[in-house]
C-alpha cells in the first residue's frame, strides 16, 4: 500500500483551492480584459484626403454604388411629391399636422388603486383627407388579461374600461357596424357619425376607469408612489407620410404621439404631493403657505431649496386641507405630446433652477425650474443630488442644442419598473442607483426632453431617432460632468461586442420586431450613439452638432421621418452621405479595416496597403508616429471602397524617425477588430 499523507495533501489543496477561488471570483478585471481605451479625440482638422488606388486590378464585382444607395421609400417619395416633405430635410411648404386639445379630470382612489377619468378631446383635422374613423390609443389595455404583450407585466388586472364614448355630445355604443367604437388590443377605432372633413374639428368625450397597474412597465404604483402614465385615451397620430399609425402597444417599443394642449385636473387625497407635466394653475388652493414661500425662494434662483422636508409633509403643512379629505390640482401644458403625473404622500420636494440661455423671444438669459420628488429612503440612492444633477443636464443640453423650452423639469422617484422613463417635462426613475449612475440616467432621460419630446419622431418604428440621440447626448453630459468618464467608449464597446458576437440587428426595424431585448438595445441605443460619433469623424464634430441643431430646429413640435434627419445632415454637411446611412442604419455590415502591408518607398514615404475585411465602407484614418512623438496623418476617403475593392494602397509621408503606423488610433470608428490596425503588429 502506498503511504498516505492526507493532512499535508488537504492543507496544500485547501491553500491552492482558496487562492484559485479568490482569483476566479476577483471583482477587478485583469488589465488585458478591460484595460483603458482611449477616448475619441476632440475634433481635429481633417487630414488631407489621399490619392488611393486598388492594390491590384480588381475583377468586376456585383457590388457597385447601387449597393450603397438608400432603399426606395415610396410613402416618403409620395410625401415629397405632395409637398409635405423635401429632399433637403426641411418640412415641405404643404406640411400639415393634426392637433388636439384635451380637457380632462381624473380622481385617484388610493384604496382600490383605481383611477376614474372623464374628458373631452377637440380634434382638428388639418390634413387634406376626410377621416371617417378616428383611432384612439388606449395604452392602459396593455394590462388587460387578453392583451398581446412582448414584455412581461407583474399582473394583468384589467385595462381601460370605457363607460362613455360620445361624439359631439352623442353617445356611441360599442358596435362593429355603423357609428360606434371597437377596441382591439390597445387601439380603439371610433367610427364617426359623420366623416371629419379637411379643416374641420370634432369633439370627442370619454369617461373611463382603470386599475393602476402594480409596477407596470413605465409607470404604475408600488403602494407608496403612483406614476400615472398612459392613463387616458389619446388620439393616435395621423401623419402626412403613413396616415394613421396604429401599431399596437405591446410593451417593448415605445410611442408615437401627436402634439396638443392639455388642461388637466387631478384629485388626490389631501397631503399628497402631485408632480405633473405642465404648469400648476392653482397653487394657492393646494400648496401650503410655507410650501409656496419656499418655492418662491427656489424660483429666485441659484440655490437648492428643500420645498417639502420630512417634517413638512401632510395636509395643512405641505398641502392645504381639502374638502372631504381631497384636493384637486390643475395643470395646463401647451404643445406637448402627453401628460403624466405622479403622486405620493411620502414625497420630499427639492427645487432649484437651471440656466437655459435666451429663449422665447427674450433678450435676457432665462432659467427653468427644476423639481425633484423622492421618498426619504431614496437618499441612499443619491436622490439628494437629483435636482442639481437635473439642472446640470438641462444647462448642458440647452447650451449644445437649443434652450430648454418648458417651464420646469421634474424628476420623480417611482416604481422600480420606471427604470428611467421620459415624459414631457418629467422623468420617472425607479430602482436602486448610486449618485453616479443617477446622474447618468437623469442625463439620458433629460436628453429625451429634446428627442422625442420636442422633435416628435416615431419611437415605435424608429427607436434610434430618440433613444440613439439620448444615448449620444447622455455621453456629452456625462463627460462634461465627469471628465474621466468614457461613456462614448462604453457605447462603442457594447456595439462592437454585439458585432463580434454576431448578435447585431439593423437599426431600421420596428421596435417590437427585434429578436430579443438585447438586440433592441444595441440597435436603438448603443449603435446609433456610436454611429453619430463616427459621423463626427467624417464631417467634423462642429458640423455634426450644427446638423443636429438644424434638424431639431426644423422639426421641433413636428413629426420627422428618418429621411428628414438624413436629408438635413446631407444638406448641412454639403455631402451626399447616403452611403453612410445605408451602411449603418439599414445594414449590419461590419467595419474591419486592417493594415495588410507596409513598404518603404523612400526615406520619408511609405506605401501602405489597407484591407477592408468587413463590408462597411468607411474612410481610413491613418496616423504615422515617430520615435520623438511627431505624427503625420492621412484620410483615405470612403469612396475607394464603393466599387467593391477589398484592398487599397496609399502613399503616405511619415516622420523621419517613423516607428509605427495605425488606423484610427482615437477609435472614432467602431472597428470590430483592433488587433490588425497597427504596423508593426503589437
Amino acid at each position, binding site marked *: 500500500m502506498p503511504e498516505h499523507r492526507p493532512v499535508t495533501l488537504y492543507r496544500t489543496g485547501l491553500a491552492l483551492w482558496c487562492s484559485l*477561488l479568490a482569483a476566479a*471570483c476577483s471583482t477587478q478585471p485583469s488589465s488585458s480584459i478591460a484595460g483603458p481605451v482611449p477616448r475619441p479625440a476632440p475634433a481635429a482638422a481633417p487630414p488631407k484626403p489621399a490619392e488611393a488606388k486598388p492594390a491590384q486590378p480588381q475583377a468586376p464585382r456585383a457590388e457597385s454604388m447601387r449597393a450603397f444607395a438608400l432603399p426606395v421609400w415610396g410613402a416618403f417619395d409620395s410625401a415629397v411629391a405632395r409637398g409635405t416633405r423635401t429632399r433637403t430635410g426641411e418640412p415641405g411648404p404643404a406640411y400639415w399636422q393634426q392637433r388636439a386639445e384635451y380637457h380632462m379630470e381624473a380622481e385617484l382612489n388610493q384604496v382600490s388603486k383605481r383611477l376614474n377619468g372623464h374628458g373631452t378631446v377637440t380634434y382638428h383635422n388639418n390634413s387634406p383627407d376626410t377621416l371617417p374613423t378616428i383611432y384612439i390609443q388606449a395604452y392602459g389595455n396593455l394590462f388587460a388579461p387578453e392583451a398581446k404583450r412582448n414584455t412581461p407585466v407583474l399582473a394583468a388586472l384589467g385595462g381601460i374600461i370605457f363607460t362613455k364614448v360620445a361624439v359631439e355630445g352623442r353617445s356611441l355604443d360599442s358596435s362593429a357596424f355603423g357609428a360606434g367604437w371597437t377596441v382591439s388590443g390597445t387601439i380603439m377605432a371610433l367610427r364617426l357619425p359623420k366623416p371629419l372633413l379637411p379643416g374641420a374639428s370634432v369633439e370627442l368625450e370619454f369617461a373611463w376607469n382603470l386599475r393602476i397597474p402594480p409596477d407596470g412597465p*413605465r409607470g404604475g404604483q408600488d403602494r407608496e408612489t403612483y406614476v400615472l402614465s398612459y392613463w387616458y385615451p389619446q388620439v393616435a397620430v395621423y401623419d402626412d407620410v403613413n396616415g394613421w399609425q396604429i401599431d399596437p402597444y405591446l410593451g417593448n417599443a415605445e410611442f408615437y404621439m401627436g402634439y396638443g394642449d392639455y388642461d388637466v385636473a387631478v384629485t388626490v387625497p389631501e397631503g399628497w404631493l402631485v408632480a405633473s407635466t405642465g404648469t400648476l394653475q392653482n397653487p394657492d388652493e393646494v400648496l401650503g403657505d410655507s410650501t409656496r414661500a419656499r418655492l418662491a425662494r427656489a424660483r429666485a434662483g441659484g440655490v437648492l431649496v428643500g420645498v417639502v422636508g420630512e417634517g413638512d409633509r401632510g395636509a395643512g403643512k405641505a398641502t392645504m386641507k381639502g374638502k372631504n379629505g381631497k384636493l384637486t390640482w390643475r395643470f395646463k401644458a401647451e404643445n406637448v405630446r402627453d401628460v403624466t403625473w405622479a403622486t405620493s404622500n411620502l414625497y420630499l420636494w427639492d427645487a432649484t433652477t437651471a440656466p437655459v440661455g435666451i429663449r422665447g423671444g427674450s433678450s435676457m438669459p432665462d432659467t427653468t425650474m427644476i423639481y425633484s420628488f423622492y421618498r426619504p429612503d431614496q437618499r441612499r440612492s443619491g436622490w439628494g443630488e437629483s435636482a442639481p444633477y437635473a439642472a446640470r443636464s438641462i444647462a448642458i443640453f440647452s447650451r449644445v442644442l437649443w434652450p430648454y423650452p418648458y417651464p420646469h423639469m421634474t424628476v420623480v422617484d417611482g416604481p422600480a419598473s420606471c427604470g428611467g422613463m421620459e415624459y414631457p417635462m418629467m422623468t420617472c426613475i425607479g430602482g436602486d442607483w448610486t449618485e453616479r449612475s443617477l446622474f447618468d440616467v437623469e442625463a439620458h432621460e433629460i436628453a429625451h426632453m429634446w428627442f422625442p419630446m420636442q422633435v416628435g419622431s416615431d419611437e415605435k418604428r424608429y427607436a434610434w431617432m430618440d433613444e440613439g440621440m439620448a444615448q449620444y447626448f447622455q455621453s456629452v453630459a456625462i463627460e462634461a460632468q465627469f471628465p474621466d468618464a468614457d461613456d462614448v467608449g462604453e457605447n462603442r464597446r457594447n456595439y462592437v461586442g454585439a458585432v463580434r458576437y454576431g448578435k447585431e440587428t439593423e437599426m431600421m426595424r420596428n421596435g417590437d420586431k427585434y429578436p430579443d431585448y438585447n438586440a433592441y438595445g444595441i440597435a436603438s441605443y448603443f449603435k446609433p450613439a456610436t454611429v453619430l460619433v463616427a459621423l463626427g469623424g467624417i464631417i467634423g464634430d462642429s458640423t455634426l452638432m450644427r446638423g443636429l441643431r438644424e434638424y431639431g430646429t426644423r422639426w421641433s413640435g413636428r413629426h420627422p421621418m428618418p429621411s428628414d434627419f438624413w436629408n438635413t445632415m446631407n444638406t448641412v454637411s454639403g455631402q451626399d452621405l447616403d452611403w453612410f446611412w445605408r451602411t449603418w442604419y439599414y445594414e449590419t455590415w461590419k467595419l474591419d479595416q486592417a493594415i495588410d502591408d507596409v513598404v518603404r518607398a523612400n526615406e520619408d514615404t511609405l506605401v501602405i496597403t489597407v484591407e477592408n475585411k468587413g463590408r462597411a465602407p468607411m474612410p481610413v484614418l491613418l496616423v504615422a508616429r515617430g520615435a520623438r512623438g511627431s505624427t503625420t496623418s492621412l484620410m483615405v476617403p470612403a469612396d475607394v471602397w464603393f466599387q467593391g475593392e477589398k484592398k487599397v494602397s496609399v502613399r503616405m509621408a511619415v516622420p523621419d524617425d517613423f516607428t509605427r503606423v495605425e488606423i484610427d488610433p482615437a477609435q472614432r470608428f467602431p472597428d470590430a477588430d483592433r488587433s490588425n490596425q497597427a504596423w508593426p503588429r503589437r
Partner: protein
Amino acid sequence: MAPPVNAGAQRLRLYRLWRTAAVLCALGAVEIGVLAWQRQRPVIALACLPLAALAAYGARRASALRQVL
C-alpha cells in the same frame, strides 16, 4: 427609456461565472485524480471525467466571452 442593462457588464459577469466554474471543476478533477492515484484505485478516477468535461466546457465558454469583452 433608460438604456438596457450594460451589455458589457453582463458579458463580464458571465465570463467570470464560466471562469470560476472551469477553475473549480478542474481543481476538483485534479484532486480526485490525485486521490485515485494515491489509493491506486482507478475506479475513483472515473469521477474526474464529468468534472474535466465541465471544466473544459467552462474554459471554452469563458474564452469565447473574453474575446468580446
